[in-house]
């Protein structure tokens, strides 16, 4: 931010407006306006009650809605548990290999999302090594398999959104002044206390950002549920997609989509307030 001040922060009445015009107009036309049309579509054709789509959304598809949020929440938790220690190890223990390890974290995501998820189908296959090993140590879920179970779906969701958790946590850990942890040690904190009282609170903005970046796409995702789960794991995204593209019940589909958006917006705001980070932008 200092750079802007140093650069003089020119005050020109028109120039910035002209510069942003094309991009902003595009976002208004193809992000803001569509949100309005989505709302209008959700209120349905003139011959039905305006709330008809919403009524069916909650009565028929309430279970899918709940499932989407449940799975996304579980995946977000798994991502924190997997991602935080890795981000911590890279930030505090990797030394000169930091950038290399960060590169390794991102590298798998240069392959196509769908192909990656199909690869999990191979890994979790009934005859595969993973199922055999878990079977031998008696840790298979009661279905006797992994594919087409809730575990595979949550696993797939966690896998696909894990980098979105690791990178923000890493950034917030990296910013922590090393003098603070030294000070904690000097004041006779043991390692556990220093972590709980200094590092963890200071890295919460990263955990918050990472959780949102994981949770939001996970609620809307339906690829993991479709490829790794059975119809019993069908998520809201599948329903929206099917209603929009196959059934063409537009008012129901738009209602579901709008409900998803509103709930997520509310959750994001509450979450941000609870953790005291109001400036998400």
């Amino acid at each position: 931010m200092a750079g802007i001040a140093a650069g003089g922060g020119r005050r020109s009445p028109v120039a910035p407006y002209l510069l942003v015009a094309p991009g902003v107009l595009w976002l208004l036309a193809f992000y803001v306006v569509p949100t309005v049309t989505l709302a209008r579509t959700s209120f349905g054709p003139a011959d039905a009650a305006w709330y008809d789509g919403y009524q069916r959304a909650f009565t028929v598809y309430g279970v899918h809605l709940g499932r989407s949020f449940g799975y996304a929440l579980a995946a977000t938790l798994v991502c924190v548990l997997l991602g935080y220690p890795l981000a911590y190890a890279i930030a505090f223990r990797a030394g000169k290999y930091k950038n290399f390890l960060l590169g390794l974290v991102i590298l798998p995501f240069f392959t196509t999302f769908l192909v990656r998820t199909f690869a999990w189908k191979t890994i979790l296959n009934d005859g595969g090594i993973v199922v055999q090993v878990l079977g031998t140590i008696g840790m298979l879920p009661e279905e006797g398999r992994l594919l087409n179970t809730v575990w595979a779906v949550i696993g797939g969701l966690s896998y696909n959104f894990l980098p979105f958790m690791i990178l923000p946590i890493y950034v917030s850990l990296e910013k922590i002044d090393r003098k603070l942890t030294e000070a904690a040690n000097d004041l006779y904190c043991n390692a556990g206390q220093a972590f709980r009282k200094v590092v963890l609170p200071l890295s919460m903005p990263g955990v918050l950002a990472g959780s949102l970046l994981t949770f939001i796409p996970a609620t809307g995702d339906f690829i993991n549920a479709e490829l790794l789960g059975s119809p019993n794991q069908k998520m809201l995204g599948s329903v929206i997609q099917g209603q929009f593209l196959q059934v063409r019940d537009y008012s129901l589909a738009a209602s579901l989509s709008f409900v998803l958006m509103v709930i997520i917006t509310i959750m994001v705001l509450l979450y941000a307030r609870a953790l005291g980070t109001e400036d998400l932008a």
Partner: protein
Amino acid sequence: MARGGPVGSRWTGRLLDLYAGLVLLYLFLPIFVIVSYSFNKPAGKFNFVWKSFSLDAWRDPFLYPALVDAMKMSLKVAAVSTSVSVVFGSLIALALCRYTWKGAGPINLLLVLPLTTPEVVLGSSLLSLFLQVNAPTGFWTVVIAHIMFSVSYVALTVKARIRGFDWTLEEAAMDLGAPPFRTVLKVTLPLIAPGIAAAGMLSFALSLDDFIITLFNAGNQVTYPLYVYGARRAAFPPQINVLATTILVGSLILLGITVLWQNRTMKEAMTK
């Protein structure tokens, strides 16, 4: 004593390293599968179970015309949408970094909003707009959608890269008599070029990989991810893995080149 972060005994440290290593391994597991299964000779139409080693798919990567067409379509969409979104996004980033003005706050919010909206909602809202105005979905609607979500990423990436720059260099050039157009060409562009290149690569990669938004707005057009999605029903040939591996290696090389280039520009900027 452990350097830096508070880690208890040496054993806690070792355990942490081990755990982190296992998570990294988990991240790479599907990649090993994708690459090695490109050398598989599957028993049936579906390349999901290992049968025997073969170079067939690598020898004949273009065996399936529909897959090749889908890849071409993806590259075309990515090229068009990236070139537009790079211009739009960079201009927004410039406006946000160079000027102090009232619009900056709302525009930052407008940029972040699409990133906090699930893709299903983005895709379905756009489709509801296209339905409303009776626009047939196809190549151009996909391009419109990809530009929409890329603009935010480009603007935020370029903004992050150029935030600390010393804009007085531009004034210096103009004081020395350079006309505004030359100043932009000789001073501004070289300064922000690495940021734009990084944003362009990100935008290209996102476009190539996008599935959900594309599914809603593609009509009967098929991109590479849409082809892979359809392949779960008809046939999943190892050629899909060959392409995925090629994209992986290609992006690695590109990434290497930009990192080297950025390091060089950074060094030049520092020494000047």
